[in-house]
């Protein structure tokens, strides 16, 4: 067990940058395509569901203080079953790492470095994340403290300076979907918000674990507010048809900003915050996977695993999806169920078994 401590603010920043960056890439298009003008209701449902889920993670973390999710699943389920569940979590984090890697390199490849091989972009990204992961959790936490404003400020600049093109009429008609449809559409954002199960790892290192729940609520609350603001500006500025056509709508939003004759062409801001945010995501998933592996197989230092894991990820990144269309289809159809199985079902099962085996009263 590492002797590291992270503060509440760092805890919030980590979840905030992780979540916001993974939401801003491809999700706006899918959400607007599905739920049109009612997209804010979907986001609110997502927020409520995830805030409730956070309580489950929180209770588990409080019942087994100083233990990460990999360790307490062994405590709860016994060594064998616990290891299997732990491996499922590792697989999930590994998959999320791959997807984040794919998303960034696709983005960079499409809009920025069109001639550079994607494998090379992946290599650079993994190399930098490798360095950060080896440096340990405290460095990752401080990194996300720097990155959080790097995401927030460019996003706010873009949202502010595109206000002159807002056409509020585009917000109508609202309430065109039934509550069942909305719940169905919110599966995907809920599964995206669910990456916050990394909370199950960070809580063990939190210096005031009691504040974890509050920190998580602040993080998802601010992410929800920001993503609703972004989605609403996309709808009011572009209309639903145009925004559900664009693969990177936020990038488009930055492209149309023109204030006076000098403040224009600021897409770079989007590139900065997308890559900075995705970098935090990469580092967190990378760290979680190797830490999980090390704790499951009782390896003293997780650092011994990082290089091998990185190489495996680099090789896999070449094969995992043939093209962006395949990834989109997977994200829209299969991913939510897969992710919800891990993020919701497994966690709730853990809690139930823990309540039965160790009684309700245990701290």
């Amino acid at each position, binding site marked *: 067990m590492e002797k590291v401590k992270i503060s509440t603010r760092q805890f919030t920043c980590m979840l905030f940058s992780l979540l916001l960056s993974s939401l801003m890439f491809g999700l706006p298009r899918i959400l607007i395509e599905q739920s049109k003008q009612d997209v804010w209701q979907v986001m609110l449902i997502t927020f409520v569901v995830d805030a409730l889920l956070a309580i489950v993670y929180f209770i588990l973390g409080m019942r087994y203080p100083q233990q990460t999710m990999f360790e307490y699943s062994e405590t709860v389920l016994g060594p064998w079953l616990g290891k299997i569940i732990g491996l499922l979590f590792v697989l999930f984090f590994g998959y999320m790492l791959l997807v984040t890697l794919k998303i960034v390199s696709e983005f960079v490849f499409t809009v920025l*470095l069109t001639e550079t091989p994607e494998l090379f972009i992946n290599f650079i990204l993994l190399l930098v994340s490798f360095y950060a992961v080896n440096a340990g959790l405290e460095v990752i936490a401080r990194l996300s403290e720097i990155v959080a404003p790097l995401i927030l400020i460019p996003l706010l600049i873009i949202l502010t300076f595109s206000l002159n093109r807002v056409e509020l009429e585009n917000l*109508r008609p609202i309430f065109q979907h039934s509550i069942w449809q909305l719940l169905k559409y919110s599966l995907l954002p809920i599964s995206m918000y669910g990456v916050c199960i990394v909370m199950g790892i960070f809580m063990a290192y939190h210096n005031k674990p009691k504040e974890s729940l509050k920190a998580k609520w602040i993080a998802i609350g601010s992410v929800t507010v920001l993503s609703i603001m972004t989605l609403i500006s996309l709808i009011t500025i572009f209309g639903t*048809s*145009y925004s559900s*056509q664009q693969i990177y709508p936020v990038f*488009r939003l930055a492209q*149309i900003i*023109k204030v006076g004759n000098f403040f224009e062409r600021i897409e770079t801001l989007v590139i900065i915050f997308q890559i900075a945010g995705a970098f935090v995501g990469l580092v967190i998933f990378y760290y979680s996977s190797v830490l999980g592996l090390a704790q499951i197989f009782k390896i003293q230092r997780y650092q011994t695993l990082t290089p091998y894991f990185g190489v495996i990820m680099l090789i896999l990144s070449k094969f995992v999806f043939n093209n962006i269309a395949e990834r989109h289809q997977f994200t829209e159809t299969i991913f939510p169920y897969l992710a919800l199985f891990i993020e919701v079902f497994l966690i709730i099962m853990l809690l139930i078994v823990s309540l039965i085996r160790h009684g309700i009263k245990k701290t």
Partner: protein
Amino acid sequence: MRKGKRVIYTLLILVIPLLISGCWDRKELEGRAIVTLIAIDKGENNQIKFSVQIARTSDSQASSNGGSSGGEKSSIIMSGTGDTVFDAIRNLILKAGRKLYYPHNTAIILGNDIAREGILPELDLFNRDAEMRPLTWILVTPGQAADILEAQSTLESLSAKQLDMMLTDFGASSKTVATNLLDTMKQLAYDSPGAVLSNIELDPSNPKKTLLLNGAAVFRRDKLIGRLDPLETRGYLWVKDKVNAGIITFPCPGEETKKISMEIKKAKGKIEPDISEGKFNFTITVNVVSRLAEQECLTDLGNPEELMKLKKSQNEVIEKEIRNIVDKAQDKYGTDILGFGTELSRKFPQEWQKIKDNWTEEFPKAEVNIVVNSKISDIGLVKKPL
């Protein structure tokens, strides 16, 4: 040990610049030709003729023409053909040598023939490619688009720059529309019935070829079906709430041969849909604030009674402008360019789901009321003419 570490770090620092310079994607300015205008026409054998106006950078000017001044043109025009737009773009490199650079392109001009066959196929590339920008102007011309590239610029050194300024300031007269790629794509979005784009021509009154923005082009779905003259275009702009300024002229009260100019200060237009007994009614409301800017007659107009009369005539003129475009859209083109369907879908979503497939047949039958409210804010520096 310490020394060895220092050597490794120094080496690392020396290697990093090699990685961050972006070896694969560097773009040297000298190797680029900056495209300022694009024209797309129908070529022979159903091919696409793609013409560009390239800004002459000082470097290429000096090398090609030994420092000659005066009559030297500031741009070069080139064209290539291909099966698709992108094919034509790449074929153009065979002639240009340099790779063309598009992010500074001002406008895309579409020729008449290609616009009649549909513009979405041609615009797809510009919407898809990351190098193209959504704020590029889209214009249609009645002849060959390549001819527009040949136009002489008057005040600016590049006709592209001039075109950009003409379109940015279109609101001063409100007699043409200015549509960029984003507006165009929004107008052509999935279930839209049509679009209105800017129309550019060579000024017939000027023997030296110069540019003239003349009215607008009307599209059914994405196919060009006709044109609007400047006043009809303003009718369209009233309805779409896009009039910012402009001059309204009408005869003096009492003296029919003399005219009055009213300057539009502010205008607000909106469409209110309504359904009664299965019939669709639309009420177009326009609120205008204007000022008396010029009068040719010698009557004293500076009193409330006369201003009331002016207000009435102004209402009539505006109503006529709007009625013209509504009639034209309903009867001549049979296309909902004014966005009645969109308004209907916003206010009556359920009814819209039922009617939306038959909207083309229903639209011409819809009843349209026009309400114009005017306010005359001031009369300038003069109380009455001498």
